């Protein structure tokens, strides 16, 4: 009961701010700027972009993502070799000590295949990130427009 009340309070507090600007912490890791782009229909894959800051002294690694929004969420890396872009699977994404790691356009990113429904601008959905050392944490992912380049947050990150 108390959790529900607290949850309600938190929701009320954050209702005015863009969800993508929220930061969630897990040990030494802070995870924020979680966003995705709207999709045309549910047949196309969606992206998942996020920023992970490791304030600790030990390296960690993002080893997987899970979400009820897609049946096949995967970690990928966009690689351009000799002008040709490909997207190999990434087994894990290094989250080095003292650094901010981005899943972002043109590099490592989450790819959500098998969407359960089309992603519409303004929607949000949870993604659980699993780290080799820190464990798992769930963040809320904000769906921005198909033309978005990222969330606009006050911290100007």
């Amino acid at each position, binding site marked *: 009961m108390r959790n529900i009340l607290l949850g309600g309070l938190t929701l009320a507090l954050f209702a005015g701010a863009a969800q993508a600007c929220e930061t969630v912490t897990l040990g030494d890791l802070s995870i924020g700027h979680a966003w995705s782009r709207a999709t045309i229909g549910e047949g196309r894959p969606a*992206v998942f972009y996020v920023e992970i800051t490791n304030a600790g002294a030990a390296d960690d690694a993002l080893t997987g993502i899970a979400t009820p929004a897609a049946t096949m969420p995967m970690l990928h890396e966009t690689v351009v070799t000799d*002008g040709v*872009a490909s997207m190999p699977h990434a087994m894990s994404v290094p989250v080095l000590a003292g650094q901010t790691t981005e899943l972002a*356009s043109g590099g490592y990113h989450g790819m959500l295949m098998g969407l359960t429904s089309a992603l519409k601008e303004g929607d949000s959905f949870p993604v659980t990130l699993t780290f080799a050392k820190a464990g798992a944490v769930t963040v809320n992912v904000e769906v921005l427009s198909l*033309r978005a380049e990222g969330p606009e947050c006050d911290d100007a990150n």
Partner: protein
Amino acid sequence: MRRRQLILSLAGVAVAAAGTLALGAWRSRVVPDDKLPLPLTAMSWRLTDHRGQEVTPAAWIGRPALVFFGFTFCPDVCPTTLIDISGWLEGLGPDADGLTVALITVDPERDTPEVLADYVANFDPRITGLTGSAADTARVAAEFRVRYEKIARDDDYTMNHTAGVFLFYPDGRFASIIDFHEDRRFALPKIRRILSQGPRT
């Protein structure tokens, strides 16, 4: 007298040989590099745009052109390229109205004109989507020296493809490429260079 004739004919042979060599050198200069796109005037593809209209390279002569390859099921590289291009067009303002801007799909199986229409509607209205048969796609890719490959992924597939943006002068000559990972600040000057040649009247 005979000797003079011999000299003359030898000279003739020499001139002919020099001519052949010169022609060879000239030819080797105009023979296109197999890594760079052909000039539009030497291309022969035939595609359908997202409005259902047939387009040929001849239709692009007279205006500078900005062309790239992609597919609408591409989650990362293609939207990023389209967002970049929309940003460049905004940055150029009305100057960009004289530009042909085209996305050619490497996935004609899924990207019908209707699918392309839905997709390009999300970006700058000056961007045209083009598709064709598998053979049409192979031909246009070959003429642009673009590589693409279907990659099976579980029960689905994705496409590897050349990610750069090709620029052409109004007379159809190939101008330059904006590479995917190139600093985007260099893109606008490259586009201004093809625009400065102006549309041919």
